[in-house]
């Protein structure tokens, strides 16, 4: 029995060390966040004299007040929320369509179409050819460039298709015999049973869109359309990064105080931190389904 062996073991020295090491590791994972929050909440002098470590000194909210007073940040926040919401919706719809249709074992042409999708996992045009296509279809410097060219992710497709395949066939068959169309089966039977996987995949997409910065770097020129990550990058590292000689060292202290930088980091990360605890178990589930070969 699973329990008996474990119950026999009282807390040994080895166990205690193990707990201690894991706690330490968890602290290492959390420490950078504490550091950010401590800086963002500390007084100017405390930061300058280097006394801040993982708790705020001379607590104040000045940095946050300054940031939230910047229209740039609000603009970027709005852009990112828009891209995340619209992008996730589009991605989910397309992924559901693809996975549902291709999870039907009897669909003529299924193998060919699935192969076409899976092939893109191993081979692609690369950065420049894709860039030229995005430009060619008129998406350059539009927000659409941030989600349309990457709307269906192959990994997410595999995960969802695996899930659909594992649903009991009998339910769908019964509905089909009763004369329901595939669309009706999808909407009335499959989707209600698939809410957990839809949440999981939706979250994968949402986090991806929220964090994406390279696509914005490639496709967005107009500073008014900067996403949060792009804005954050230019605030943290200065625009120099574009010119291949960015300099992380000793720069920007005059331009922006450490507190202000760290408050910006905090603001752009808080949405993820807020939703994270509730959604974590879904993510884990998604990884597990994905690891089972589709």
């Amino acid at each position, binding site marked *: 029995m699973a329990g008996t062996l474990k119950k026999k073991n009282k807390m040994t020295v080895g166990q205690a060390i193990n707990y201690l090491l894991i706690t330490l590791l968890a602290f290492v994972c959390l420490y950078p966040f504490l550091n950010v929050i401590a800086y963002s909440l500390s007084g100017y002098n405390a930061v300058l004299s280097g006394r801040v470590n993982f708790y705020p000194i001379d607590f104040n909210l000045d940095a946050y007040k300054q940031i939230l007073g910047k229209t740039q940040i609000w603009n970027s926040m709005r852009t990112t929320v828009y891209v995340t919401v619209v992008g996730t919706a589009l991605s989910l719809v397309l992924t559901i369509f693809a996975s549902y249709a291709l999870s039907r074992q009897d669909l003529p042409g299924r193998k060919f179409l699935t192969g076409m999708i899976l092939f893109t996992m191993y081979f692609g045009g690369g950065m420049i050819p894709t860039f030229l296509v995005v430009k060619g279809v008129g998406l350059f410097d539009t927000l659409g460039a941030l989600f349309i060219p990457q709307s269906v992710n192959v990994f997410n497709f595999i995960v969802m298709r695996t899930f659909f395949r594992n649903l009991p066939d009998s339910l769908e068959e019964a509905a089909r015999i009763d004369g329901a169309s595939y669309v009706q089966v999808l909407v009335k039977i499959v989707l209600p049973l698939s809410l957990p996987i839809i949440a999981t995949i939706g979250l994968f997409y949402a986090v991806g869109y929220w964090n994406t910065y390279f696509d914005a770097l490639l496709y967005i020129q107009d500073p008014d359309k900067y996403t949060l990550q792009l804005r954050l990058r230019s605030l943290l*590292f200065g625009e120099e990064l574009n010119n291949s000689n960015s300099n992380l060292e000793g720069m920007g202290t005059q331009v922006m105080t450490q507190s202000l930088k760290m408050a910006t980091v905090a603001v752009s990360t808080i949405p993820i931190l807020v939703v994270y605890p509730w959604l974590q178990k879904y993510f884990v589930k998604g990884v597990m389904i994905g690891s089972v070969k589709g």
Partner: protein
Amino acid sequence: MMRSGTKTQSPYITKKSFRQKVTKVWAYKWLYVMLFPVMAYYIVFKYIPMYGITIAFKDYNVFKGVLESPWCGLKVFQKIMTNKNFWEAIKNTLLLNFTTLIVSFPLTIIVSLMLNEVLSTKFKKITQSILYLPHFISWVVVAGIATNLFSQQGGTINLVLNSIGLPSIPFLSSNGWWIFTYVLCNVWKEIGWGTIIYLAALTGVDESLYEAAYLDGATKFQRLIYITLPSIKSVIVTMLILQISKMMTIGLDAPLLLGNSKVMGVSEVISTYTYRLGIERAKYSDSTAIGLFQSVINIIILLAADKFAKAIGEDGII
């Protein structure tokens, strides 16, 4: 691709069977309607760019475009192959990937084993949540935090070192230390997330084996070596092969954001090089050629790794 159906079909393709086929396809019309936008997406944004690879063999001219630019054979390849920076980028890609693998691979397994030993479900849940968290943080944020912690002037770590009388360490500005910082950031970000797959495998280990070993007087360490590790061996091997097959692929975010002019000698990898060459200097053909070279190498490694995995009796990775 399976095309076995055509071979076994009777040679007399009658009108009736054709009509049957059409009827059969028609029955699925709504599924095809659903697939239409998806396939359109893949054709436009994945397959047309694949055709665009032809510019690696062309003298690309912005005004003429992909189709009209004149062919130039392997001229572009000759150019990049003789370029020192290209080989440097490949070397750095392998160096960073290899170092990260050496550190993170065993560490991930060790952490998984440690988490697996935890008896309190509550403690396990909380620590797991914390360990997974960095995976969801963007590289921009990670790089921002890393700068705050590691910069030579005013970085928290160096301030602590100074306060106990030690000299500052150039975490971000000397080649060797930069690699250290790069690996550290990567490990910090992904170690917890990497344990998921091992923890799943570990829950599948047959408890009765432990029970028997325990009764036979095996120590905890012996149980670990003779039961736990062999039970998850195939997961370990598959993960290792999978990671090795990605040796030539490297994300652009981390080296681009953590890198700076002082450490270009180690931070310039294939992806950042392609980006700078293609986007910043508009050398479309060169950049595409490098991308193609990388893809081809990737496929070769992947096929070899898959073959190897099957040869040693594991599941293939494709």
